[in-house]
C-alpha cells in the first residue's frame, strides 16, 4: 500500500541500508599523523561492500553519534571499507578510540563521486591538500587500475609540514612509478627537508599536463580548493573539467534533512563532488 511518496522513499532507502546502519567490525586501526588515523572495516554480515571514488559513508559510533567520512580505500577491494579520519569533534575522537574487533555502524555509500570514467581519454590531475588526499586516494587507485585509459596522471599534494604528510610511503611508491607524476610540497619545513616548500597552488603552474584535455580533481580545505581551482583556470583548464569535493554539515546522507543545503544543492545527494561551473557562484560566498 502506498502511504505517501516520502514514506515510500524512506522505506526504499531503509531497504538498501541507507537509513539503517549496517554493522561493521574494525579490522585494523593505523595512526597516520598526530591527529589523523585510518580505520579498516569489514562487514559483520560478511557481505560485499561497494563504492565509487569520492563517495562517503556515515560512520556511527554507538552511543555517540554519526559523522560523514569519505571512503579512502581501493574500490577494487570489495571486502572492506577504509576510512581516514581526522579527530576534530566528539564523534571523530570516539572513532579514534576504536580498535580491532570493535563494532561500528555504517550507512552509505552516499553522493556523487569523482568523474573517473568521464575523465578517460584526458590527462588527470589530482590536487590534494592535507587530509584531502584521503577522498582522492580511491581516484588514484582507480586511475592506476585503468592506467591505459588516461593520458598523463599527475598527483599534486600539499601539507602543512613534512610530519603532516598523509600516506607518505604510498606517495613514495607512486612517485617511483614511470607512469605517474607525483609532486609533494609543504607550507613550512626545517632545513632537513629536501623536498618542496611552498603552497600546493605553486605546483600547478609547472605540472606536466595539457590544459585543454585535462580533468582536475581537487580536495582539501575550502580556501585551498578555491585558489587551486583558480590556478587550473589560469592554466586553461575549462571549468566543467575542474571538480571539487565540498563538505558541509551532512546528516541524513540522502537529501532529506536539509542540513547540508548549499544554495540549490544538497551536498550529500548532489555532491560532494561538483564541477566548478555548477558551483562557481557559490564558492567563497560568506552568506551560505
Amino acid at each position, binding site marked *: 500500500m502506498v502511504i505517501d511518496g516520502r514514506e515510500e522513499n524512506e522505506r526504499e532507502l531503509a531497504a538498501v541500508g541507507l537509513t539503517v546502519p549496517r554493522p561493521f567490525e574494525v579490522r585494523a586501526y593505523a595512526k597516520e599523523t*598526530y*591527529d589523523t588515523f585510518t580505520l579498516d572495516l569489514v562487514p559483520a554480515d560478511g557481505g560485499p561492500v561497494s563504492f565509487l571514488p569520492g563517495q562517503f559513508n556515515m560512520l556511527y559510533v554507538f552511543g555517540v553519534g554519526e559523522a560523514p567520512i569519505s571512503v579512502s580505500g581501493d574500490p577494487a577491494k570489495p571486502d572492506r571499507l577504509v576510512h581516514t579520519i*581526522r579527530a*576534530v569533534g566528539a564523534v571523530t575522537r570516539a572513532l579514534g578510540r576504536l580498535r580491532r574487533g570493535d563494532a561500528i555502524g555504517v550507512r552509505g555509500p552516499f553522493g556523487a563521486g569523482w568523474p573517473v570514467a568521464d575523465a578517460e581519454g584526458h590527462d588527470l590531475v589530482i590536487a590534494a*591538500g*592535507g*587530509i584531502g588526499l584521503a577522498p582522492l586516494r580511491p581516484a588514484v587507485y582507480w586511475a592506476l587500475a585503468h592506467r591505459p585509459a588516461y593520458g598523463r596522471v599527475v598527483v599534486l599534494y600539499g*601539507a*602543512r609540514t613534512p610530519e*603532516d604528510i598523509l600516506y607518505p610511503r604510498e606517495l613514495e611508491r607512486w612517485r617511483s612509478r614511470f607512469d605517474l607524476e607525483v609532486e609533494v*610540497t609543504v*607550507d*613550512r*619545513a*626545517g*632545513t632537513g*627537508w*629536501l*623536498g*618542496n*616548500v*611552498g*603552497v600546493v*597552488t*605553486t605546483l600547478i603552474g*609547472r605540472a606536466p599536463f595539457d590544459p585543454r584535455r585535462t580533468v582536475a580533481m581537487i580536495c*582539501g*580545505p575550502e*580556501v*585551498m580548493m578555491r*585558489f587551486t581551482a583558480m590556478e587550473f583556470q589560469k592554466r586553461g583548464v575549462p571549468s566543467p573539467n575542474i571538480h571539487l569535493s565540498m563538505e558541509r554539515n551532512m546528516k541524513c546522507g540522502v537529501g532529506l534533512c536539509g542540513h547540508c543545503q548549499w544554495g540549490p544543492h544538497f551536498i550529500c545527494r548532489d555532491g560532494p563532488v561538483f564541477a566548478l561551473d555548477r558551483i562557481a557562484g557559490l564558492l567563497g560566498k560568506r552568506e551560505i
Partner: protein
Amino acid sequence: METLESYLAEHPFLKDLPPRHRKLIVGCASNVRFDAGTYIFREGEEADRFFLVRHGRVALEIFAPGRGPFTIQTLREGEILGWSWLIPPFHWHFDARAVDLVRAIALDGKCLRGKCDEDHELGYEILKRFSHVMEENLKATRLQLLDVYGDRR
C-alpha cells in the same frame, strides 16, 4: 652549442622578450653553478645579482635564533631567485642554499639597472615580469599565512 643568449631565450622568465632586449641584457649574464649544500647568498649581503634557475632546487631560508633555520620557499628550474638587486638598499633578506646541484644564469644587478635606466622599454619589461613574480609570491605567502590545514598542534 647553446649560448647564453639561447639560454636566456629559453627561460620562462624571459620568454617572448624581444631579441633586441635580450641582446642588451646578455652582456650582464654569466653561467654559474652551485654544489648541493652551498649558499648562493646570505641574508644581509649585497644583492648584486639575481638568478634564472636552469637546473636543481634552491631553498630560501630564514634563521630564527633559538629555533634554527627554516625553509620558507623552494625554487626550481624555470623560476627566478632574488629581486633585492632591484630595490634599495640592495641587500638580501634571506639565505639561499642549493638543495642539489644548481645551474643558473646570474644577471648582474648593477649592469642590468644601468641598461634599464638607459632603455625604459627594457626597464618596463623587466619590471612587469618581476611584478608578476612578486604577485605570485604574495598570493602564496598569504595562503601560507592562512595555515589552511587546520588547527595548529
